[in-house]
């Protein structure tokens, strides 16, 4: 069971990375290279920036997917750790 949740967490991680890159592509030209680097270092900044500018840069769908995989990765990581520890 732990393995399944671990794989699901990994799938969410891949989804998260793809969404992060898609938002960074919009963030870099809009905010400049320094904030772009901040976006790479701090995923939370990119996530908040993405929602703040979702309509301006047509990012709403990407942000909705990112939010789902973001929550999924936390939940599946927690479940994976729980089942791995209990087995």
């Amino acid at each position, binding site marked *: 069971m732990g393995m399944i949740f671990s794989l699901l*967490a*990994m799938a969410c991680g891949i989804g998260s990375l793809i969404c992060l890159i898609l938002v960074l592509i919009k963030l870099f030209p809009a905010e*400049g290279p*320094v904030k772009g680097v901040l976006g790479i270092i701090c*995923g939370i900044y990119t996530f*908040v920036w993405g929602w703040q500018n979702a309509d301006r840069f047509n990012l709403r769908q990407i942000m909705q997917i990112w939010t789902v995989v973001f929550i999924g*990765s936390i939940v599946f990581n927690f479940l994976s750790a729980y089942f791995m520890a209990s087995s």
Partner: protein
Amino acid sequence: MNWKAVLTKPVIAELIDARHLAPWLGGFAAVQIGLIALGLPGWPCPLMTVTGHACPGCGLTRAAVALLRGQWQTALTLHAFAPIFLALSLAIGLSWLLPKAHRSQLIDAVAKLESRTGLTAILFIIFLLYWLIRLLAFPASLAALTYR
């Protein structure tokens, strides 16, 4: 591209000034630090999850938690930028609570410091170099950051 303008552009001052952004950033950072402090999995780094390699910011949350617990040595071993990260997070978060006049003074002071010295860009460059050095010369220190 005018690199001097790019490197001296006030970034932290803009983050403090963005009142709509600060509470969200502060809230997310507080939740992430809280989850890690409770021993629960926080938001895992997407790069680490997919590639197994640490990103430049990997270890910062755990280092910040160690710092808040007064474990300086652990914090600095996990990530040397933890004190700066924590100070900036607190500054951005707390500035939201300041009265308008004091906030404006703070924003002006930070903007002047950034545009005169290029401090933020310099810090970012050192931050990336620190990550590269750890990645190439001390891979074991970054491998220790892996959750599993």
